[in-house]
C-alpha cells in the first residue's frame, strides 16, 4: 500500500495535524481500494462475458442483464468491433446492435411514405418479428431497439426516439418536432372511448389544450406537410389522422 503525499494539516495544533494526516491516508487508501475494486470487477465482468458469450448473443433477457452490469462500471461493450469487448464477446454484441440498427432503419424507410417518418417501436418490433421468424438471425426483444436507435443517431439523418404519451416512437426524418407537435400526437393517441384512436380535429386541440386557432393550424399544417398526418373530411368537419398512431391503436385491424 503506497502512501500518498502527506497532507498539510489545516487545523491548528499537533492533534489536528495528526488527524488530518490520518484522514488523508484513509482517503488515499479507500480511493486505492475503490479503484482496485472496480478494476477487479471489470476483469471479472470480462471473464463472465467470455464464459457466457453464447447466452449474451442469443438470449435477449440475459443480454439485458449483462448490459445492466456494465453500465455502473463505465463499461460500454457496444463500441467499435476492434475493442477489447468485441474480442471478449466474440464479435457479438456490438455487431448485433449494428445489424439490428440496420434492420430497424430498413423498416423505417419502408414505411416512411405511409407514416411520414414517425413510427411506434412496437410496430417496428412486430414487423421484425414477422420478418425474421425463422430464427436464422439472433433473437431480440423490444428493449434492444432503443439501444440500436442510439447507434443510428450517431449516423445522423435524424434518427431519434421520442415519447408520445406512454408510447416510444422512432422518428427517422430530420424534421423538427416541437412540443406542440408532440402534444397533438399525444392527443390523437388518447382514446376518449368513442373509438377515435388516432385522430384529432382542430377544435379538439383548441378545447383540450386551450391554444389559439393560429397555433393549432400551424402545428397541424406541419404535420400534414411532412405526411405524418392525413386529412379526413367527414360531414363538413376535418379530422386529422396519424398513420403511425392509427396502426398502433389497431382500431381497424
Amino acid at each position: 500500500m503506497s502512501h500518498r503525499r502527506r497532507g498539510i494539516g489545516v487545523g491548528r495544533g499537533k492533534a489536528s495535524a495528526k488527524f488530518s494526516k490520518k484522514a488523508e491516508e484513509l482517503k488515499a487508501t479507500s480511493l486505492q481500494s475503490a479503484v482496485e475494486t472496480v478494476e477487479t470487477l471489470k476483469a471479472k465482468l470480462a471473464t463472465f462475458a467470455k464464459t457466457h458469450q453464447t447466452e449474451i448473443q442469443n438470449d435477449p433477457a440475459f443480454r439485458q442483464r449483462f448490459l445492466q452490469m456494465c453500465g455502473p462500471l463505465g463499461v460500454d461493450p457496444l463500441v467499435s468491433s476492434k475493442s477489447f469487448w468485441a474480442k471478449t464477446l466474440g464479435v457479438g454484441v456490438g455487431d448485433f446492435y449494428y445489424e439490428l440498427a440496420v434492420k430497424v432503419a430498413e423498416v423505417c424507410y419502408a414505411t416512411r411514405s405511409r407514416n411520414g417518418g414517425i413510427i411506434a417501436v412496437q410496430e417496428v418490433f412486430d414487423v421484425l418479428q414477422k420478418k425474421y421468424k425463422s430464427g436464422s438471425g439472433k433473437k431480440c426483444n423490444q428493449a434492444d431497439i432503443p439501444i440500436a436507435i442510439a447507434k443510428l443517431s450517431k449516423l445522423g439523418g435524424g434518427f431519434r426516439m421520442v415519447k408520445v404519451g406512454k408510447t416510444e416512437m422512432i422518428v427517422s426524418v430530420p424534421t423538427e418536432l416541437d412540443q406542440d407537435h408532440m402534444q397533438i400526437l399525444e392527443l390523437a393517441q388518447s382514446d376518449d372511448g368513442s373509438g377515435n384512436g388516432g385522430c384529432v380535429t382542430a377544435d379538439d386541440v383548441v378545447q383540450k389544450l386551450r391554444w389559439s386557432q393560429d397555433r393549432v393550424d400551424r402545428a397541424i399544417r406541419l404535420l400534414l406537410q411532412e405526411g405524418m398526418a392525413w386529412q379526413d373530411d367527414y360531414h363538413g368537419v376535418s379530422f386529422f389522422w396519424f398513420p403511425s398512431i392509427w396502426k398502433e391503436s389497431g382500431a381497424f385491424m
Partner: protein
Amino acid sequence: MTDFEFPEFYSFPPFFTVQPVLSTREKQMALWRELILKYYTQRKLKTLVVHECPLWKNKDIDRQLSAEGIEDVMADLVKMGHGEWLDEQKTRCRILWRKPEQLASDIYEWAIANGNIGSVCTVYELHSGEDVNGMSFQGVDEDLLRRALSILEDEGRCALFKGDTSDEDGIKFL
C-alpha cells in the same frame, strides 16, 4: 368466388378524402390505382363503370369518395396508362392491368429468353401457349395483346402477318 382481400389502407378514413398536400396526394393516388387494378383484375373485369364501382364507398367506416374525388382518381388512373375511356362522357373505362408498352417489352424479353428471335409464333401461342406460363401476357385479352404487338412492330422488333383465323395470325420476332 373468393372474397377480395381489401388492403389495410381501405379502412383508413383519410383514404377517401383527396389529400391537400401534394406529396401525400400522390401516394394516395398510387394506392387507389393499386386497389383498382388488383380488384378488377382479380374479378376478371375489364371495364370499370364509374357509377357502379363498389370501391368508392366503404360502409364499414362510413366514408366515401366525393364525386370530385372519383374524378381525380379516374383521371390519375388514365394518366398513368392503366385506364382508357370508352366513351366521351367518361362513364366507362377500360382497365389496363399492364400498359401496352409494358406488355410489349415483356413479350420481347420473353422472346429473347426463349430463343424465339427469328422464329414465328401465333397470337394464340402468345396468350395461351404452354411456353408463356407465368408471363404477364398470359391470358391477356387479344385486343390488348395486339396493341402491344403493334408497338413492337413500330419499333421494328417484330413483323406481323395474317393467318387463316385471327388466332393463327403470326408474329415473327426480329
